[in-house]
């Protein structure tokens, strides 16, 4: 499976600020995904990020709040903008459609634990 890293692993931020989370993969992947896991809850997809095209956002998530970049096939960033305490969550990136293995299985990074005060 792909090796995925995220930076930062955790952060504590003040209300009204923004944080950019990085996701790096050790192989070229067609699709990358960003999920949110709120405390005690399961995972919810924020958006799908394909290289060379605009990210596709799920219902309830907007680009102004969660801008995403996907500059190449191994890297993506998610920014959480104008944060409020309700944004406190674990943010996870995942990868799928590995070019070599052509699989639908998604593999997840270790997550970024965000606390907003």
């Amino acid at each position, binding site marked *: 499976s792909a090796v995925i890293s995220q930076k930062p692993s955790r952060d504590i931020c003040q209300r009204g600020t923004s944080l950019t989370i990085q996701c790096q993969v050790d192989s070229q992947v067609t699709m990358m995904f960003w999920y949110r896991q709120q405390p005690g809850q399961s*995972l*919810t997809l924020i958006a799908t990020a394909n290289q060379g095209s605009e990210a596709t956002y799920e219902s309830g998530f907007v680009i102004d709040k969660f801008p995403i970049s996907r500059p190449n096939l191994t890297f993506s960033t998610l920014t959480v903008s104008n944060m409020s305490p309700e944004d406190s969550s674990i943010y996870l990136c995942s990868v799928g459609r590995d070019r070599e293995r052509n699989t*639908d*299985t998604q593999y*997840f990074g270790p997550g970024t634990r965000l606390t907003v005060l």
Partner: protein
Amino acid sequence: EDQVTQSPEALRLQEGESSSLNCSYTVSGLRGLFWYRQDPGKGPEFLFTLYSAGEEKEKERLKATLTKKESFLHITAPKPEDSATYLCAVRSPKRSNDYKLSFGAGTTVTVRA
């Protein structure tokens, strides 16, 4: 809308006490059911993918099965290191390039020595 329901919410087992976790789903056009294991403070770790009813997959003490309405994750003779939250997810694409996974709430398994 896709629905994925996992039961029970929590399961406490004695070491060696086999049991099963359930994942029931309501989707239109299943294109994969996925099981993950998540340890506290970590990202989900992939376990199995099942595509069609009757399919089974095994890995060490874990065995996943699939029917047209539900999937089971059987844990045989569990050990304390099997303690984790087990997540079930389904893929039911609404368009050709839709790879969204819909997750259940998970079952937290605690195995006591």
